[in-house]
């Protein structure tokens, strides 16, 4: 506009004869089809909001009687004995975290390696194939990983667990409460453990972490990669100084996303573990329980009060998963690499 006014200062031939510039009136009314479209889209949005919100509110409201009834002891009690009115989730929460920690301890290095392999080491020709194989791995039903863990992995993993106990049993988390050097070692003490369930869960959550990491790694700036190589860096030197720092947000975020999934995993865990409600951190030893396994095992015979307690346990699990996922999303989006990630 200013330019126009400046131009207007030069004498015009006949100012009175020309109409002044006026903004054209823009008709703000939308076409009817658009009004219908906006209304429909908003309606869907509101409906989904209501459904999702109702679930969250319902879980929260259902938890109130339980918290009133048991108070803080709901978090400190480890037994789940509805017939004696003793309920608590400390043991199952610990079990949930044990399985998730084992799963992440295995999934993290493997996911990082796979992501680095696909983005840095693999021949370009097979990259697409490898990426879709990771996607396929994510699509494999959890029950199949459960079968894999129970029938294929367990008979082999107990040997590994035994070996760890014999040689590294002085570390508290490799200890198993049995005589490791007995002439015939007690195989059943090493089966159905959080360790084996954790391996199965790790295979389930690994593709998610690997996919996020690979995507971030592939966005590492080419100029910086080439600069590192031009300065005489080896391939690993380039990865260590360019790709990994650039992808740090994706590494942490992807790992936490997969942790969110690991916390809620049910079927593979139910298939493998034998339920136990002891407070212990001995992943190699038989018996553990997770929140989701508790729900799957106990919902059938539950009275309405117990059902509310189970819902509360589920609500606590949901809140934990929600916090982990939100943190992960924040880390991925805040990091330098996250700006273009989706």
């Amino acid at each position: 506009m200013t330019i126009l006014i400046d131009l207007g200062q030069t004498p015009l031939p006949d100012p009175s004869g020309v109409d002044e510039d006026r903004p054209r009136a823009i008709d703000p009314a939308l076409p009817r089809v658009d009004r219908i479209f906006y209304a429909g889209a908003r309606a869907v949005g509101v409906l989904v909001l209501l459904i999702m919100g109702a679930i969250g509110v319902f879980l929260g409201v259902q938890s109130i009687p339980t918290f009133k009834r048991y108070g803080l002891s709901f978090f400190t009690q480890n037994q789940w004995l509805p017939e004696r009115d003793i309920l608590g989730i400390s043991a199952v929460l610990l079990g949930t975290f044990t399985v998730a920690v084992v799963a992440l301890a295995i999934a993290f290095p493997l996911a990082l390696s796979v992501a680095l392999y696909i983005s840095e080491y693999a021949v370009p020709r097979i990259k697409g194939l490898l990426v879709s194989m990771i996607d396929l791995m994510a699509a494999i039903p959890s029950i199949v990983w459960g079968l894999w863990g129970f029938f294929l992995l367990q008979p082999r993993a107990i040997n590994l667990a035994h070996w760890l106990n014999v040689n590294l049993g002085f570390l508290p988390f490799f200890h198993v409460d049995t005589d490791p050097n007995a002439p015939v070692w007690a195989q059943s003490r090493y089966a159905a453990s959080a360790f084996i369930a954790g391996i199965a869960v790790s295979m389930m959550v690994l593709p998610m972490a690997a996919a996020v990491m690979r995507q971030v790694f592939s966005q590492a700036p080419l100029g910086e990669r080439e600069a590192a190589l031009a300065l005489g860096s080896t391939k690993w030197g380039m990865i260590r100084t360019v790709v990994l720092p650039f992808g740090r947000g994706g590494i942490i975020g992807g790992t936490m996303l997969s942790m969110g999934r690991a916390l809620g995993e049910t079927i593979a865990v139910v298939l493998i573990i034998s339920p136990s409600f002891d407070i212990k951190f001995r992943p190699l030893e038989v018996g553990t329980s997770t929140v989701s396994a508790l729900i799957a095992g106990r919902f059938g015979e539950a009275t309405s009060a117990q059902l509310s307690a189970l819902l509360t346990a589920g609500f606590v699990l949901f809140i934990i998963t929600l916090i982990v996922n939100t943190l992960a999303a924040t880390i991925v989006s805040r990091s330098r690499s996250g700006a273009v990630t989706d």
Partner: protein
Amino acid sequence: MTDQLDFRENPQEANAGILPVAEPDHPRATKSRTQDDLFSFVGAVAGALALDWLLYTKILPFSGTLGFLVLWYCLFLALFAGATAVGNPSQVVVDRVVGAAIRGAAALVFFALFTSIMFTFVRGFPALTHLNFFTKDMAGVRPTDALSRGGILHAVLGSVIEIGIAIAVTLPLGVGTAIYLNEVGGRFSKVVRTLVEAMTALPSIVAGLFIYTILIVMLGISRTGIAAAAAISVMMLPIIARSADVVLRVMPGGLREASLALGASKWQTVRQVVIPTVRSGLATALILGIARGVGETSPVLLTSGASTYTNVNPLQEPMNSLPLYVFSAVRSGEPEFIARGFGAASVLLALVLILFVITRFLARQKVGKR
């Protein structure tokens, strides 16, 4: 590519013999694998094998194929590092060892994927060879009966019906939400997006427990296919809405703006520009969500009940489904029934693989169009 080839085919004609004909440019081979690389690798593999054999069979009290392979790999890494250290600076040693370790770990993951698929099909093969496995249900069949009796027809039909209802509910809602979030927007849409992203954290078992409490305990509906479909829908809706949202969000804004600038209404833009552009990506995301929904056991475990007979009415009577059938079969402890479970798991896995191949096909179409 064609342009370059056409240009180089007749350089003489273009020059008309005046200028000397330049050699066509060749990219320099950047992948320089030296003999040192090759020999230290081969030597380390062979040396590790020999040393492993010696340690394993003669010195250490170990046994088992798995341990042998693990020890071989560890020895290989050590020998590879040692062989490289002769005449190479430490950076090269680290580079080679880390490279070998990363390749090894990646191979391990793909091996695990391969074993899980092969194991399921191999163990499921005895059941799959019987035709009645696909055409009969389990009505009147005892768990101990031979594989020539009974089948999984009821579970297949149940899975198809339940996932069909879930798709009919979640697909319009999920895609509609994504369109709302991206095409309509506004302050309120941020609330919806936040909530949808939050609900993707809902563990599937909690979704099942929610439906179980509401429909079965509170409203007194018995365990039916519709309850299972509702549980699957609750689980799938955030996943589908979120992945559709991600697909729509990466669509280039220029196309949208060009359409609006040409005078198209918002609805015309969505229908004729946005949807056709993202169609293949959208289909891929949706099918992956469906694959997730069809394989998930925990929602149906709580809500559908396990029938042994064929039931195609989702409103009445329990209805079995493939994941639930697999779960109850392998927990029964009967060898014949476990074999059936693996057969059903193979069918489920094949279903997921087919869905997956379809997504790859759609994704490739997208690349071809560009």
